[in-house]
């Protein structure tokens, strides 16, 4: 079903509601005197958005707004993930000391605005829509990154993010204009058809895709477009960092996957896709995946000053892992990516919640601030963090292991066992720094001056949910996998 603008509105409830809520929140900020209510309102909004996306899950696949937005299982899966990420981010923000010190009305409005952009990134079916959504997210993120207004580091982070993002998205829009010139259409499906009929391996196409890749790679922080990530992650308030690491990255993957799978490849039958216009892409993406994960893990090895920075490198590495599922260009890889991104959402967000709990109590974000965490009031956060760290490493019986298992399986299935080996070697390297955190929390003695850590029920509930999900999905992951399996298809 392909709907026009007015028909589409009834299928766009989450986005419309979110857009309305952004404006409403700005307005409410002017009239409400109890600012802490704004967070609760934003939480309610994200909860409604989650429900709205869930309600759409059963609708017939098609396109909205004259083909510029896709309404399909793939997009909705990602929209659900993004809405959940927004929900968790707002939840975290309510419990964050950093956010409480700022102008909350604007903050929540901008978080919701970024969410709106991400929803469109997940379902954009058209280059223009994709670019607008991406820029929308970026602009909101620049502001959020610098939200701690009186912190020099936050200002620096924001500015770097802005300039770097500007260059990347500039390259991307340039590349997109080339694609438009080559294919004569902005719509993904039409681009694929136009390219399939043309000569193969054309130089302009390669260049156009390379330039587009710069913008997409920047959003998912893949090498060599990752350089903004550590500085920005470190400078931004913790909930924002979590949102960037989880929501923004997920949305970036959604767009990248949809663009490459529907515009640059066609399904070959038997769950295998094939590039249109040359298969040199295969090697490039393979190299991208391998280098991204290796870089992220090596750089994370000796990070001690700031755990957000460490998690930034680790999130770069995880982008590399997810890209493994991309390289193989099969349905197996596709659902492995969907599955992994969900698992990644749980464990990475959980890690950030723990960092925030510690920072709330002690104001510290360095590794030394975690010394003996388990023995100074933070036993539950420490246990949760250990679970997240082992899950991020990919050790069973945790969700991260299942996620990696599917990725490796997809890679091995295509005979790329060298890549699988690189992935395993990277998991081993990552164990070193993840285990170091666990060791610091449990085996190091707290020394004087490292205050007690207390977790309030608000953060405790979120942490508990994420921890339980990480463990349960490690043992009983069938339903999620089925959902990912069902969602690993595009319209048409």
């Amino acid at each position: 079903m392909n709907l026009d603008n007015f028909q589409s509105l009834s299928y766009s409830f989450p986005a419309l509601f979110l857009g309305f809520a952004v404006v409403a929140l700005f307005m409410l900020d002017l009239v409400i005197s109890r600012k802490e209510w704004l967070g609760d309102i934003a939480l309610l909004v994200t909860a409604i958005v989650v429900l709205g996306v869930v309600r759409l899950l059963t609708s017939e696949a098609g396109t909205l707004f004259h083909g510029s937005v896709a309404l399909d299982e793939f997009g909705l899966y990602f929209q659900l993930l993004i809405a959940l990420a927004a929900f968790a981010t707002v939840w975290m923000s309510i419990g964050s000391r950093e956010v409480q010190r700022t102008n909350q009305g604007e903050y929540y409005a901008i978080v919701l605005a970024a969410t709106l952009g991400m929803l469109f990134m997940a379902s954009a079916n058209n280059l223009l829509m994709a670019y607008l959504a991406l820029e929308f997210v970026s602009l909101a993120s620049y502001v959020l990154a610098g939200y701690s207004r009186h912190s020099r580091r936050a200002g620096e982070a924001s500015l770097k993010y802005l300039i770097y993002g500007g260059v990347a998205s500039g390259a991307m829009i340039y590349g997109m204009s080339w694609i438009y010139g080559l294919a004569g259409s902005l719509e993904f499906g039409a681009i694929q058809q136009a390219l399939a009929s043309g000569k193969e391996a054309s130089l302009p196409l390669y260049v156009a895709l390379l330039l587009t890749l710069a913008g997409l790679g920047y959003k998912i922080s893949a090498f060599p477009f990752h350089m903004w990530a550590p500085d920005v992650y470190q400078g931004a308030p913790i909930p924002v960092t979590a949102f960037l690491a989880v929501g923004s990255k997920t949305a970036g993957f959604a767009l990248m996957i949809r663009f490459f799978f529907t515009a640059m490849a066609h399904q070959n039958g038997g769950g295998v896709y094939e590039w249109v216009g040359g298969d040199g892409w295969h090697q490039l993406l393979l190299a991208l995946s391998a280098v991204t994960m290796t870089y992220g893990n090596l750089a994370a090895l000796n990070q001690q000053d700031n755990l957000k920075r460490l998690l930034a490198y680790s999130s770069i590495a995880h982008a590399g892992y997810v890209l493994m599922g991309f390289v193989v260009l099969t349905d197996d890889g596709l659902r492995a990516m969907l599955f992994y991104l969900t698992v990644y959402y749980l464990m990475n967000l959980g890690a950030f919640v723990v960092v925030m709990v510690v920072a709330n109590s002690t104001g510290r974000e360095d590794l030394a601030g975690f010394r003996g965490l388990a023995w100074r009031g933070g036993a539950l956060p420490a246990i949760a963090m250990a679970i997240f760290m082992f899950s991020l490493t990919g050790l069973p019986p945790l969700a991260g292991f299942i996620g990696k298992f599917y990725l490796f399986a997809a890679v091995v299935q295509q005979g790329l066992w060298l890549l699988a080996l690189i992935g395993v070697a990277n998991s081993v390297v990552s164990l070193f720094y993840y285990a170091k955190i666990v060791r610091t929390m449990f085996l190091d003695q707290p020394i004087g001056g490292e205050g007690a850590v207390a977790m309030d029920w608000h953060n405790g509930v979120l942490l508990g949910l994420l921890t339980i999900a990480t463990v349960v999905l490690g043992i009983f992951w069938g339903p999620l996998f089925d959902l990912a399996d069902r969602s690993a298809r595009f319209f048409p």
Partner: protein
Amino acid sequence: MLESSSLLLPCVALPFLAAVVVGSGSGRIGRASGWIVFAAALASFLSLVPAAATHGIDRFSFPWLPAAGISFALRADGFGLLLAFIVSGIGALVALYSTAYVAEADPAKERRYYAALASFMGAMLGIALADDLILLFVFWEITSITSFLLIGYRYEDDDAKAGALMALQVTALGGLAMSVGFLLVAQVTGTFSISAITSDPALIAKLLASPLCPAALLLVLLGAFTKSAQFPFHFWLPRAMVAPTPVSAYLHAATMVKAGVFLLGRTYPMFGEAPLWAPTLVVVGTTSMLLGAYQAFREIDLKAILARTTASALGMITLLYGLGATTDDSLQILNHALYKGALFLVAGIVEHHAHTRRLDQLGGLRHALPIAFVACALGSLSMAGFPPLLGFVAKDNFYAALLHSEWLAGTPLLRTVVLLASLASSALLVATAGKLTFGVFSGAERAHAHGRRDEAHADEPRVPLWTAPAILAGGALLLGLASLGELTSDLVTATASAPEHRAHATLLPALGWPLFASLFALVLGVALYTRRDAVSALQKRLAGGPAASAMWEGAMAALARGGEAYSVRWQNGSLRWYLAATVLTLPALCVWAFSETGLSWRQISVTFADTPWYGFLFCTLLAVATIATVRARTRLAAAISTTTIGFLVAMLFVVYRSPDILLTQLLIETVSSIFVLLVLVFLPAFPARDMKPGTQLVNLGIAAAFGVTITILLLLTMTPGIREPSNIATRPGGLLSLALEQGGGKNAVNVIIVDIRAADTTGEITVLVVVGLAVYGLLRTRRRARQQRKGRGTRSEAA
């Protein structure tokens, strides 16, 4: 799916349940936690009995993830049952021993210990009984994590932390490699079920013929070698001796390190015929065996000695698997579990009593610890291979396997080397066993021990402490004696991994080379023991060279340093550097695109004949304006030249005859330049910074690289014949044709703007209005700011 009312699931689940009870239990459980774990282990042990008693093979299975073909499958064949009995039986003894050994002031810490111990036991039982490769891997990694917690139990101690981390790193590395090996196996065979693969010759043949086979084999072996502390991963085991002694006895003698050789036994039916199998295992096994025995003799710390001998014994088993001796592998595994468990537990008693583990500070404890002395003597005798202990039977079988091996017979040189190494390590183990027993228990009680005497005698070894080693050592003796009859042979045959024929395990072997070899080794060992000081002196002289554990730590440190240097150099916080890296990557990738498409700049042929002269003019001015922007020294100049660029770009649309875009662009440029100029007021002065000429040159180079590449690409694209861009406007269904067909107007641009793209135009107008509003807001703010400043000025003047 449930094939019998099997007790296998409760057997594996019980210890985990106990772990949960103990770990989450409140203070009320307190000191009882050890007994709870003991009871769970005992229950697991007993629940295995029906499985052992049935004639068939007991299994339990339910689909875990049918889509991927993974099931939670347990299967109790003889080999698995052997390990499971060892795990639960020794587990019960160790829990019992721990109730007396681990007495902490903090009951919470004690509870954690037992919780980790119980989970470890459950995971080990899982490894023993798993019939699914993924399930096996899951349990495998659980043992890695729980052993990390157990080794690091005394976390006040830096060595404990380092040892625990190293053990985790090494074993998890192997485990992850193994998981990929399993994936490859499943990829080839299409199933994760171990018994399905091993029972189907066609599948095995398929696996062996596959090009993935060597990779899969080596990856699986990596898992086995790291877990069993085989060369070159032997170094983590001695470092793990910082664990509490019952943990060492349990993990590092009886069970966890056995998982490695157990895996060899499990995968032998799959890979045994692979050409890489025998050479790899024989070389690694022989090296580990000799190295372990040599190093064991050199150590003076009781537990370090035992750790080294463990690596040596496991090396021997690895060697046997290399030779395909799967008929009596259970004998070796059982023998080692019994005597080494006993020796470790004795070491714990000795340390408890004398507060030291160093041989040079120990001696004469036979009166104080008579039962420990007997247990130690029996254990040592079995280790050395003296009759009538089980160790003698095992050693005899080992030499029989070695001398009768057809594979070795085909390589005489290797055969000689292996034989000599075996004799040497057997002899060294004999000498070490002597050193151990006599060093601790005979002679006069040392001064150091005396110093602590009062304290030591206060806690006379309690019943739970000596029961466990006594039972284990007694087992080694009884099974040795039982081999006079048929009992031991029956047991060994029933529990061998791949019994091809009946095993011979007897105290009275036939006269022949194997017997001579093992007797010769005994004599040689006794001789070495009598000359132990000379041997030690020789070893001291030979000492030196890099220690493997130091090398590992060095490598880890180098990796960390490398990572740091890497991150510091790349991620140095300089935005200029970030952008340079990114901007340079793009041309580099474009060069890759050149090579992919087989094009080069030489193919460019473009004429600019139909470009009007003002086109060139605009472009030239554009370049000038761009340079002016970069070189501007004030914000105002920069803003103005940026605006100029914008207007000039707009003018380019004159060249392309698109007045609508031109108009939009001009409007946007105008409003945004006002915007920029207004914002400038709020900014501090431009920091006037002169770049060094070198920096400027580098910048120029980067810019040029990017610019030149993109220019070449553009020119190539425009070259006829490379790729014709589709003419979007005029193709059927394009906007130009639509204008006439649907809009009914011949002025296509007008129709497009107000009709076809009406919504877009509305959007553009809205944007302009919003920007205009923002400008208005800024203007007002500025006016207010000026008024305030004025007001403040007058106030201060008045003051």
